[in-house]
């Protein structure tokens, strides 16, 4: 379902006098339909950039990201946006809920930008699934951090995605809530038939996954050239 080949991404670096420094260089990575894989990596190792490239939030410099038979690298920004809206879900460490929108509206917006119909009943059922059926009209600020992450999970699944990307989803939660959130993400993805690619540096999180891939082995960016 997802096959990555020779993917490269550089950013201009002030430390390198504004010259591009390679952040991501992944020769090969594959993820099957419905598979759940964790990537282990320390802060600054390029994990988030890798997820953003897969999500199409960033344009790759070169390589291929084959997702359901489409090479994202060859697509323009609008087409990548559409693909993400229709077939991907994204769970952020900081939840990134829209504070001015209700819980239900946050989830509804998760299915609003694809080509499909907005299904409020599906949004409600997802929120009931994550235990927030009685909080539909609440605003994110009225919820605990654990509840907010559950809204983020429901939102990521709102468009019935083929792939869910999770970037340190438990990073802002305490241990118990982190475990609960992780279990929820895994169960919800399994129920929805969505593949899950999760990045984390937390051994407790990673311990629950098999396989766990080491991102520092996967990602081999070129060392900055000396001036």
């Amino acid at each position, binding site marked *: 379902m997802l096959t990555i080949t020779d993917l490269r991404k550089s950013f201009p670096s002030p430390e390198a006098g504004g010259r591009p420094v390679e952040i991501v260089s992944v020769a090969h990575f594959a993820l099957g339909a419905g598979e759940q894989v964790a990537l282990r990596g320390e802060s600054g190792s390029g994990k*988030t*950039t890798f997820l953003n490239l897969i999500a199409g939030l960033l344009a790759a410099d070169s390589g291929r990201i084959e997702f359901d038979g489409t090479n994202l690298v060859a697509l323009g920004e*609008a087409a990548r946006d559409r693909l993400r*809206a229709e077939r991907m879900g994204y769970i*952020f460490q900081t939840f*990134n*809920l829209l504070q001015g929108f209700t819980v239900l*509206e946050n989830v509804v*917006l998760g299915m*609003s930008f694809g080509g499909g119909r907005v299904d409020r009943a599906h949004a409600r059922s997802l929120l009931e699934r994550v235990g927030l059926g009685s909080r539909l009209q609440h605003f994110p600020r009225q919820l605990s951090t654990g509840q907010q992450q559950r809204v983020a999970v429901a939102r990521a699944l709102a468009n019935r995605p083929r792939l869910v990307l999770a970037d340190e989803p438990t990073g802002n939660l305490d241990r118990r809530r982190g475990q609960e959130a992780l279990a929820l993400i895994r169960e919800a993805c399994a129920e929805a038939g969505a593949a899950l690619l999760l990045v984390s540096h937390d051994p407790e999180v990673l311990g629950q996954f098999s396989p766990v891939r080491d991102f520092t082995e996967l990602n081999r960016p070129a060392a900055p050239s000396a001036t």
Partner: protein
Amino acid sequence: MTLPLILYRSLRQHALSTLVTAGSIALAVGLLMVVWMVKAQSQRAFVETSTGFDAVLGARGSRLQLVLNAIFHLEASPGNITAADFEQIRRHPAVKAAIPLAVGDNYRGYRIVGTVESLFTQVEYARGRRYAVQPGGRVFAGAAHEALVGSFAAERLGLRVGDTFQPYHGLVFDPSHQHEEIYTVVGILEPTNTPADRVLWIPLAGIQNMKGHDPKFATDLSAVLLQLRTPQAGFMLDMMYNRQGNRLTFAYPVGAIIADLFGKIGWFDRVLALVAYLVAFVAAGSVLASIYASMSARRRDLAILRALGARRHTLFAAVVTEAAVIGALGAVAGFIVYGALLTGVARIIRAQTGVAIDVLAWHPVLWVAPLAMIALCALGGIIPALKAYRVPVAETLAPTS
């Protein structure tokens, strides 16, 4: 439903700035519409208010002053004309009707005008409309100390049929210059929405013989209102009085003289319009400023929407539409401002000139100004919309790890 939801939530989230901005737009739109309506309606009303007469004959002087004095009951009379002059014009074959007027007194600031009964019984003050006396009243008779009071003056002075009053000398109210004569109100005119509504009408002889007025000029008149048989007669009399004679002034045609006045004070309209335009631009600028100022706070929300799959042009459209919606809210509220302002202005104009402004009248500015303001606001939304368009998603949402 996505765009309306985003708009609704954004407006709710920034409710205070939305209200303040919409308020300033309401003022701008209201002011623009009032300026145009007052200009258009007052000009039309003044030009069309001939009170049924084609021309005015008076003492040598300004035609405009003569018309303002005899038709609008404003300004002082340029001087008197003799009874012989009146007889001459009255008997002229080109003249259909001649109504003499004598002014010089007031009652608490409202003019007292001496004239003849036929003004109220034979003359149409507008096409198909004759003066009418309210039930229970009648027109003054002959040389009696009787008065027929215009509806506006009666209302303001609290005069009713049977009431009496003592005139004051001069056109400006001075309590120390009261005449001895006592006049009785015998009738109140139905409203005509003309300057006649502000006048207390008494018999011609009443003014002419008022104690304190110089008896030498007891037969003199202030002006003669004229209906002509043909337009050509006007040009003929213009030649006779204005070109060949040098004692009298023949003001003809009445509408053109007033139009000429508006031409002369056109600069005032332009200044008002300029002020209204400036207010409109400032209001549109306030939309730009308020949305632009909130862009930093919205940056994260915009990035989240992008991460959920919203296209750049969707966010651009959302911000431009939001600016237009604020403009539309302001434009709608502008009609309330317009109604309130125009009602006040109309009241002042009516009190000062007797000319009625119709607050409910239609004019193209009533759709042009709101639509132009909405378009201007949408235009003002383009700059913050470009900022929304350019929000870098990955950079805004999460630090690179």
